[in-house]
């Protein structure tokens, strides 16, 4: 098998997605920790368009954008456990919600960190609404099973769950829980099940670590 390298940073939810997916599929790879303030030649060469992580390099083929990488992994390593559902409609639903997370939910979450006062309140509100939408979607997508993907974690579980440390840290630092028993009962239970998965335990950063990151971001912007 050609070599597999993952360029990333261990705290990035987008990188965590790829790590979880590779572990779920039992695929061995080499992890290269990047310093995002001093990006490597390899990163700049492999992702010249965005210069971001994660980048998966399979042989001499670089693939960028976490959701593109997840689908690539599933298709290039088609023996064994599939991350995407097999049915075309279920696949469409999984892609739709993964896209929603990246285009709507993540910008709201990031907005909480980058704003203050009234603007921050709005971003928190948006994030809570987004989580509620996802909670509602969980009911029809999971079809009574533990995960979005069914009995085992799949594409949408990974796309969403990679943000859990970040989401929980936001709850601690800003005092507003986005996922809880009352507002998002299904996601609340799903979090517990998701975190029990071995690939998740190994790769999801500790919430305390992310709390420290958020606090230092707040301090830095308060000083500016």
């Amino acid at each position, binding site marked *: 098998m050609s070599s597999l390298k993952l360029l990333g940073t261990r705290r990035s939810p987008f990188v965590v997605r790829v790590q979880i997916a590779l572990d779920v599929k039992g695929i061995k790879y080499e992890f290269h920790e990047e310093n995002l303030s001093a990006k490597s030649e390899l990163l700049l060469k492999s992702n010249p*368009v965005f210069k971001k992580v994660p980048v998966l390099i*399979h042989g001499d*083929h670089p*693939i*960028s*954008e976490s*959701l*593109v*990488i997840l*689908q*690539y992994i599933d*298709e*290039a390593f088609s023996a064994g456990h599939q991350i995407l559902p097999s*049915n*075309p*409609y279920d*696949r*469409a639903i999984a*892609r*739709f919600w993964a*896209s*929603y997370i990246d*285009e709507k939910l993540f910008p709201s979450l990031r907005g909480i960190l980058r704003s203050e006062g009234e603007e921050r309140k709005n971003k928190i509100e948006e994030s809570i609404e987004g989580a509620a*939408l996802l909670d509602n979607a969980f009911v029809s997508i999971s079809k009574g099973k533990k995960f979005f993907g069914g009995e085992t974690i799949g594409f949408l579980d990974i796309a969403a769950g990679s943000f859990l440390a970040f989401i929980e840290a936001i709850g601690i630092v800003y005092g507003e829980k986005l996922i809880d028993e009352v507002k998002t009962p299904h996601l609340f239970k799903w979090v517990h099940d998701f975190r029990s998965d071995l690939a998740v335990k190994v790769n999801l950063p500790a919430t305390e670590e992310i709390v420290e990151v958020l606090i230092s971001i707040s301090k830095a912007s308060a000083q500016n």
Partner: protein
Amino acid sequence: MASHSADVKLLGAKFSPFVLRILFALNLKSIKYELIEQDLRSKSELLLKSNPVHKKVPVLIHGDLPVCESLVILQYIDEAWTHGPQILPSDPYDRALARFWASYVDEKWFPSVRGIMMSDGEDQKKNIEEAIEGAALMEESFLALSNGRKFFAGERIGFLDIVIGCCLPWMDVISRICGVKLIDEIKTPNLCKWAQEFTSDPAVTEHMPDVDELMEYAKYIIALYKPTATN
């Protein structure tokens, strides 16, 4: 899951490039469908029920199953109807490249292209710069992906051709209204040639909007939505 033979409805809106993508794909696969034009200023029950999250077009309704987001719909069409030409390439790495560039187009390039029309002054300058950079990038990517052939996908149109091609009429309009030519013979000669091939393709020609009609529509939405300096 809906079978091949279940009804196909497309909730669309005249002049929407994202809806155009779906029309191309349905044509390519020779899928019969009913086009239900939406009035986006007074959204129908059906639209609100089928796309409660975004309330936007296009929405493909297969049997009674709605699929939203144009890139998701294109892949759904390719996977639900396996007969006929494949829209996405078959090789996993080529698929990854097609998805990557589609994502770049929707998240970076098209917003700056649209921005040229809908902004003024410094903002417009920035949008023009970004859109021109985007065109240069796509010119390079076309050379790499087409490998000497007519389209991004090879000898026949595919995913990325459809994703980008839907915007060609709009780029034409922007060139006329704002004087910015994004695809031209000198700066992007290969894209220029590709654009000619694409617009003459049988799956595409019948759906391309009339440029004069599109100009009128563009002026109308500029008047309606563009923030003016005097506000």
